[in-house]
C-alpha cells in the first residue's frame, strides 16, 4: 500500500487546491492520518474511493472528537526601556522583565474516518476533517453519498457532538430522543438536573442547577 506521504501527494494532484496535512501519531501504532480541509474533503474522499490503486471501498469507522480551547501560558523575558535616574540624570535604561503571556488556541470538532480496502485487502487510511470552531450547528460535508456505511455513524456524531453533516440524506438524532437539546459527548457538557429523583435541594444539586441555568442563559 502507498505511504501516507504518497497518498497526500496523490490527493493534491487529483483535487487541485486541496489542503492536505499529515497529522503525526507518536504512539507505537504509528497510524498517521491525513487532515483534509472541509471545502475539498468530499472531492478528496471521492478520489480515495474511486482511485484504482487505493480502492478504499470500505469505510470502517466514523467518529467525532471534541478538542476544547487550549489555553497556554508561557513566561517570556522581555527587554524594556525603563526611565531611571542615574547619577541625578533622568535616562532610559534597558531592563529585563519576566512577563506571563496567555494565548488561547481555539477548539474545534473533528470527524475521523477509518478506511480499508476490501478489494485489495489493505488499510487503514485515516483522514480527518475539522470544523472552524465549537459552536452549535457547525458544518462538515457528509461522506454518506460515497459510503453508505457512514449513514448511522454520522447520525451518531451529529447526535452526540453536534456536527451538522451537509449532504446527509436523513440527519436525525439516533441515540438520544428527538426533543433532546444538548450534545452529551462534548467535553464541556453539563448533565441536566433531575429533580424527580433528587427532591431535596442539597448544595451540590443547587450548584449544578445554577451551572445549568447559566449555560441555558448563555
Amino acid at each position, binding site marked *: 500500500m502507498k505511504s501516507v506521504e504518497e497518498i497526500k501527494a496523490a490527493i493534491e494532484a487529483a483535487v487541485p487546491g486541496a489542503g492536505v496535512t499529515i497529522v503525526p501519531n*507518536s504512539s507505537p501504532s504509528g497510524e498517521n492520518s491525513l487532515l483534509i480541509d472541509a471545502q475539498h474533503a468530499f472531492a478528496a474522499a471521492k478520489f480515495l474511493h474511486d482511485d484504482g490503486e487505493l480502492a478504499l471501498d470500505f469505510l470502517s469507522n466514523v467518529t467525532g472528537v471534541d478538542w476544547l480551547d487550549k489555553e497556554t501560558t508561557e513566561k517570556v523575558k522581555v527587554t524594556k526601556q525603563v526611565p531611571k535616574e542615574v547619577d541625578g540624570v533622568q535616562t532610559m535604561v534597558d531592563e529585563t522583565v519576566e512577563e506571563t503571556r496567555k494565548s488561547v488556541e481555539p477548539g474545534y470538532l473533528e470527524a475521523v474516518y477509518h478506511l480499508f480496502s476490501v478489494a485489495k485487502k489493505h488499510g487503514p487510511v485515516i483522514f480527518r476533517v475539522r470544523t472552524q470552531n465549537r459552536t452549535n450547528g457547525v458544518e462538515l460535508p457528509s461522506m454518506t453519498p460515497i459510503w453508505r456505511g457512514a449513514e448511522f455513524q454520522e447520525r451518531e456524531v451529529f447526535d452526540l457532538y453536534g456536527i451538522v453533516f451537509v449532504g446527509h440524506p436523513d440527519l436525525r438524532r439516533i441515540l438520544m430522543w428527538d426533543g433532546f437539546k444538548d450534545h452529551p459527548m462534548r467535553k464541556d457538557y453539563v448533565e441536566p438536573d433531575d429533580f424527580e429523583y433528587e427532591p431535596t435541594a442539597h448544595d451540590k444539586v443547587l450548584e449544578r442547577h445554577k451551572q445549568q441555568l447559566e449555560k441555558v442563559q448563555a
Partner: protein
Amino acid sequence: MSLVDEKVERAPGWNRPPVIAPEGDGELLEVSMGPHHPSTHGVFRMDVVLDGERVVKLKPVFGYLHRNHEQLAESQSYLASMPYTDRLDYFCSMTNNWAYALAVEKLVGQAVPERAEYIRVILAELTRVQNHASAIGFLIQEMGASGTPLMYAFREREKILDLFESLSGSRMMCNYMRFGGCRVDVSAAWLDGARKVVSGLPKFVDEFEELLTGNEILLARTQGVGVLRPELAVNASVTGPMLRASGVNYDIRKVDRYGIYDRFKFRVPLGDHGDIFDRYMVRVLEMRESIGILEQALKDVPGGPVMDPKAKIRGFKPKPGEAYGRIEAPKGELGFYLISTGQPEPYRYRVRPPSLINLTVLEDMCLGHNVADVVLIFGSVDIVLGEVDR
C-alpha cells in the same frame, strides 16, 4: 452554504431499490414494530409502512438501551472500562475483551505472551461457536419452530459457558483479558474439559444440520428472501457472516492476521446469493471451521506466563497518540478507537459496533417483502441491543 456539490455522481451502492408502486387501492398502513416485540431481541423499534402485506418503507429506531458507554469510559482509567465492554455484546464478552485489549496493546506497543495468545484464540472461537449456534436458534424460533432448535443450541452453549465460568468466575460477564495477557492461567484440568467439550461439538453441528438444513419449511421461508448484493454490502460497511454470505471474501482473521491466527489452517465460507439461507449456511460452516481451529489450538498450548511480566498495570498512562484495533467478532468487525493525551483516562474512546452498522441495510433488504419476512430478515442480521445502543 453547501459544502457538497449536488451534481456529484453517487457511488453504485447508494442507489436504493426503486420505490414500490402501490397495489390495489394504495392505502398505506403505518405499524410500529417494537420496542416490546418478541422478535426484536430486546428494545428495538422498526417503523414499518405497509401496503397490504408488503413493506414499502422501514425506519429503524434506536436508543432505548443507550447509556453513553463511551462517555463513561472517558471518565475512568483504561482498565476500568474492561468490565464495561462485557456489557456491549453480552453474548460474546470474550471477543469484546479481546478487541479492547488489542486496541490498548496497539496504543502502548505491548507484547502478549504466547500462552495468552493461545488462550485468547481458544476463548474467541468457543465464543463464535456458541454465538452462531444461538443466532441460528433464534432465527429458527422466529420462523415458528418454537423452542426445539433453540434449546439444542442452548444445551451446547451452556457447556461452553460452564467453561467460561470455571475460568473467569462468570458465565457471561467474563472480564477476563488484560492489557498484555489474561487475568488468570488455565489449568490442565480446564484444558482437558475444553478438549472434551470441543470433541462433542462436531456431533452437535451434524445433529443441528440434520434437523434444519434441507428442512422444507426453512428452505421455503429463507431462500431468495432478504437478498443483499455484494456491492451494497461493502459500500454500507456490512461485516461478519452477513458480508461473507453475500460472497465477499473478507475475514479480518485472514486480512489482519491479528493474534496468532496465521498459525492455524481454516477456510472462509462464502455465500452465493446473499439471502437468509446463505447467512444461515455461512454460520453453520463457520462453526465447523471454528471447531477446526479449536482442535489445532488445543493440541499444543505452550507453557509460560499468561501475562507479560513487563506489562504496566499501576499508573497506566499511555503516551499521547491514537490507535484503532479491530478483530473479527462473531457479529462482524468490532473495533476500538482510542486517543490518549498522556492522561490515565482515554481522551477519546470509541466502539465500532458491528450490530449497529449491519442494520444500515435493513430497509434495503426488507422492501417488497411481507411483514412475516421482516422478522426473519431482521433475525438473520444477528444483533444484540447492548451493542447497538451502547
